[in-house]
């Protein structure tokens, strides 16, 4: 099996090719074409222990709602997209610009305690649109682009779910 792995973190984005061949419990692994000395076992569901040239690493994998993977290592976290190489179509993380209509979604479940803009109002990027209360904290939801509030889908007092669309900015 050959996979393309794209790792994104605040430090940047990198691409890797990983070739895997399973023999019994072991994996034979090549990274970017070079065979690597790696010993890999599953410690718990979605937790892998990897000894890579002797270095002990632990990787925890969770699938996020958008289908990408979150990879936790001891000290850092990556977003990963893994694709079988034959289905690789040049699509890359982070290459979509904040252009066109932007959907503003709730980052977590909570209650809309205040709506700060009106439909049709002009907004700047970073301007507060609404305040959602969750876990006793009030969290301001900001515009991801400068433009016009095209549509407001919620009102004050309304409960919202995580990822629910709150507004459209065009």
């Amino acid at each position: 099996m050959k996979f393309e792995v794209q790792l994104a973190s605040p430090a940047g984005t990198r691409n890797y090719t990983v070739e895997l061949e399973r023999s019994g419990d072991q994996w034979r692994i090549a990274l970017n074409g070079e065979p690597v000395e790696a010993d890999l076992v599953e410690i718990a569901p979605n937790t892998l222990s990897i000894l890579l040239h002797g270095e002990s690493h632990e990787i925890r994998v969770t699938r996020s709602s958008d289908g990408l993977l979150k990879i936790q290592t001891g000290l850092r976290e990556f977003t990963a997209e893994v694709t079988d190489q034959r289905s690789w179509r040049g699509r890359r993380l982070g290459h979509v610009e904040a252009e066109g209509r932007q959907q503003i979604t709730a980052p977590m479940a909570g209650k809309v305690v205040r709506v700060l803009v009106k439909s049709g109002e002009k907004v700047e990027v970073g301007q507060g649109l609404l305040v959602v209360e969750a876990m006793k904290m009030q969290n301001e939801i900001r515009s991801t682009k400068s433009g016009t509030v095209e549509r407001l889908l919620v009102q004050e007092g309304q409960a919202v779910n995580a990822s629910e669309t709150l507004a459209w900015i065009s």
Partner: protein
Amino acid sequence: MFRKILIANRGEIAVRILRACRELGIRSVAVFSEVDRKSLHVRLADEAYPIGPAASGESYLRIDKLMDVARRAGCDALHPGYGFLAENPALPRACADAGVTFIGPSAEAMEALGSKTAGRQLARRSDVPSVPGTNDPIETLQQAQALIENIGLPVLLKAVAGGGGKGMRVVNRLSDLAAAFRDASSEAQNSFGDGRVYLEKYLVKPRHVEIQILADSHGRVVSLGERECSVQRRHQKVIEEAPSPLMTSDLRKKMGDAAVRLARAGGYTNAGTVEFLVDANLDFYFLEVNTRLQVEHPVTEQVTGLDLVKLQIAIAAGHRLPFAWETITPRGHAMEVRLYAEDPDNNFFPSPGKILSRHAPSGPGIRLDEGVYEGWTVPNDYDPLLSKLIAWGNSREETIARLRRSLEEYTVTGIKTNAALFRRILAEPEFVRGEIHTTWLDELLLRKHRAPTLEQGSEDAAAIGAAVWQAMQNAAASPTSSSGASEEVPSRWKLEGRKQQVDRTP
């Protein structure tokens, strides 16, 4: 001594209190809202009773329901923890009416010291310096504007009933006043059921240093020394330590004496904390009194060796503070980090949800006070505090090294936590040198964050791990997979299908 104590709280502090009860041979009675049935405090308590829906206004803030449980279960005392009703004088009054001992100060002392404005008045009378500002709650915007003209900007709006950074707003420009007033007031109303706010001068780069006091009902009041809590995000403490890196024995004595004087003036009993701001000249200003146990009480416990919750219970039972405690000397250094269910990479948005897996650190010098466990779902309805990770060491340096080491061991999946924030703070040279103040962290977070230098090996391992995980998923999903070679075809189709559903990128 008491026979049975009602713990009018939830989460880690309820667990902390029931542990003290168990060690004293006192039965513990927990209460829980509908979403807390599986919470750790319910599992560990001797008894537990439901008190209503998730909304705290319908459960943990309902004095009538608490008194009902106290009666039903035959409790002879009640511990309020912190937050919720802990600083509401109506609770000790209701306890008195029900013949239940309230583990904390009297309602009168709470009013004299706990209300921010009354506390400031008393401080003035007790010769304890305080920050310039109002002595009374603000009723109108005009009133606030008039005061600001007097003392100058910036000012801080604070909830009269509040604590924990809630209902608090800094005002730098007069034009921000109206919005800040509205926000602080509404947050205060939601958090404490009391929307009143007051106003004080906002000192620039002060340090937050607080004195832990204990007062028995026989007139003895002692200071257990200070905690420094200057590392705050949006006025919310996130790291606390004892001793304070700036402390001198002279300043400790002066601040301790001021705190004891104030407590005496207010007729205070039980455990309490007097909060001060300290400026660059080591001048200190009274801020407020917290008439209850603090979240950060463990750092004092670690350096003094005392168990504050047991002492609270003993004081409430009428015991005398032994003289020896007045001369207690702190040993080593302790530091606490507050692990919250929130996402530091995404503006610290709360992150409730199910804890899929976790590994908790332990070993020398490490204490963990928490109310969570693997498989538990962190509810959306309360504070996001998951765990308090507390390290003790012979020196501040050793303490920081132990915290760092234990944060590397700490893992949680399923929800986000702010552990990475602490890994960053503990590596900052300013923090390591102890050069901190109350806006230090907010300023740090505005600076561009260079990711920790990571050896290439770790990133390689992440790439390999992601690919192997995917291969294992494919194999598990494919019914004809066990032989290995045939698994690629179906898995490719699965990947295709999934990719087409992915219509946005983060």
